[in-house]
């Protein structure tokens, strides 16, 4: 099944390029427990791939493997064609990461936080450029110079997006980035993702939000107990279909 999908997708999206994110029979075991088994996954430039599934299905494990924060038990995670295990630092230049809660340094302002994370990513941007990026990410101009200890979750997520934009990475890893956001903030977030997709960024997003996945995602994959049980293109299904398929996969197997 996975092979068929891998062949079908580039043709469908019209992107015949090499995938930016690729998992080849990627597995991770903790003792007896199989956190992830034999994952086959490809995310191409301009795609938003949404990983659905309950907690413990292996979504975060997948993201951790791409970030090199854990080592695979077997198989390979590739970023821009490079093995994450052997090219840990190099692969990160192609990655941006936004966690469920973007954590920032409370004592620094939003601008200073952006400046710091961008500098660590090896980019030197002027203050004006950084402000404009914060603006693109939707942060109000007057918030940039306030310490982030007073920021709301939505504002912090925007700084997180700004960090990702400033890095100009080819791939974006998102771990439930909209959970806890109000619908308006969540919608703004999706708009930003669309913008990034249009620039050719490959996005891998773990989420519980079926609606958002259908709306924003180009493809969805449903995970259960460490396995990717099905994969589909969002263009081919409706909202109701997705929910039905999701629930089906939670019940059987």
């Amino acid at each position: 099944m996975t092979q068929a999908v891998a062949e079908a997708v580039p043709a469908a999206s019209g992107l015949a390029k090499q995938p930016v994110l690729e998992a080849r029979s990627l597995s991770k075991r903790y003792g007896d427990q199989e956190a992830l088994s034999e994952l086959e996954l490809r995310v191409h430039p301009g795609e938003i791939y949404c990983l659905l599934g309950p907690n413990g299905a292996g979504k975060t494990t997948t993201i951790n493997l791409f970030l090199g924060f854990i080592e695979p038990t077997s198989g390979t995670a590739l970023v821009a064609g490079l093995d994450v295990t052997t090219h840990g630092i190099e692969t990160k230049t192609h990655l941006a990461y936004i966690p469920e809660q973007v954590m920032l340094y409370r004592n620094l302002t939003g601008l200073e936080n952006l400046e710091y994370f961008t500098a660590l990513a090896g980019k030197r941007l002027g203050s004006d450029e950084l402000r404009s990026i914060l603006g693109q990410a939707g942060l109000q101009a007057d918030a940039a110079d306030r310490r982030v200890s007073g920021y709301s979750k939505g504002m912090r997520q925007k700084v997180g997006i700004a960090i990702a934009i400033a890095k100009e990475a080819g791939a974006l890893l998102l771990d439930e980035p909209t959970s806890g956001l109000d619908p308006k903030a969540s919608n703004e977030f999706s708009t930003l993702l669309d913008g990034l997709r249009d620039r050719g960024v490959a996005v891998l997003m773990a989420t519980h939000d079926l609606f958002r996945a259908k709306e924003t995602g180009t493809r969805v994959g449903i995970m259960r107990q460490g396995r990717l049980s099905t994969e589909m293109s969002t263009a081919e299904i409706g909202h109701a279909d997705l929910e039905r398929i999701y629930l089906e996969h939670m019940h059987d197997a």
Partner: protein
Amino acid sequence: MITRIARKEFSDLLRDGRFRIGAVVVGLLLFVSLGAGWVHVRDARAQLEAAQATARDHWDSQGEKNPHSAAHYGIYAFKPRLALSFVDQGVDPWTGTSVWLEAHRQNDFLMRPAQDATTAQRFGTLTAAGVLQHLVPLMIILLAFGALASEREQGTLRQLLATGVSRRELTAGKALGIAAALGLLVVPAAVLGSAALVLGSNAAGSFLARGVVLAIVYIAYFGAFVGLSLAVSARAPSARTALVALLGIWVLNGLVAPRIAVDLSARLHPAPTAFEFARTIEEEMATGVDGIEPPDREAITNALLEEHGVDRVEDLPVNLSGITLQASEVFGDKIYDRNYGALWDTFERQSRVHETLALAAPLLAVRALSMGLAGTDVEQHRHFASAAETYRRDLVRSMNEDLAQNSRTGETYFADEELWESVPPLEYEAPSLAWILGNRTLSLIVLGLWAVGAAIAAVRGARRTEVAG
């Protein structure tokens, strides 16, 4: 990259209220202790100069008397306060700084503030060395315990590492940032200390090198604590655990290890009590020991009579008392050399035990080096004590010789200030830097091991710090 991380750490720390309060408290204590130390040393020096002049004056103006009586009258010698002793009083409060030099006896040092102090006061003296050895490490722990653990707990560590920064750079940057924040507190104190050193002493030049080495020693010590704190912070499951573990290390290093060192060194190399020591000397003086025999007055007399070809002591061209007194002096000196030599050796072996235990607690190495460079350790006390003893022997001998050469046996003879003034003052030259460092090679090596080991531990810890959770 490293400097960028360091800069952020630095500004982050400066905006942290806890750091500001801590810095003010520790900084204040450091300045006060340096100031108090400096005033204390300045006053002690003034007192010492006055006392030295008075002692000399008493010696010169003791009037006409028998030279041997003059030797009994004696003179006080004072251990000079070296320029750096304001940083570290070392063993001075316990060993004393002045000694009475007189015929027949090698006296113990006097002016021991510890003698009059209660046990509680031992911990109460605020010295710059105390602040540097105990409070600054505490400050480092408070600055660094969360360096990696808090970032991991708060989730910023994942984001940091996702930027592509290497763990090694991150650790180095953190260390540098903490060092810079610490520098804000310590560097002004060091500058002030150097200024005090230059202003407070006419021979400051020779002490600047010592000051520089002392600074390096403390930097290495602080570096070891920074590395250790980062290593623990990287490996501890939470910031709270890191803090508790580090405070445990701080207590072991600062309170438990010194206590163990004292007990263990006393057990391994027991020193006699003052009472036992005095009694042994008394006994050996009475009977002689191990081939050191009390002078045989009769044999000396007969040898002299024969040498000069006379039958009666009154006919000798020399005063027999001068000769026999000197002979018994030489005998006494041998007994003293034997006992004091063994005692000093015991103290030095004890201090070697302290230095070795520094493998478990870097404080012990720093303390040994700090006292050494300040000129207040046991070895330099011995160095001065030997110089004072040599001076005493020369003085007593010159008195006895004057008596022997310038009078005849049985004659009443008085010398005057011409003789007293002919005795040169005690010119004591403190040991060189090379001598001190030669004495403290073990501590230098152990401290170096700590600094390097802590740096390696920090980098290794960061490499293995868990970010997946």
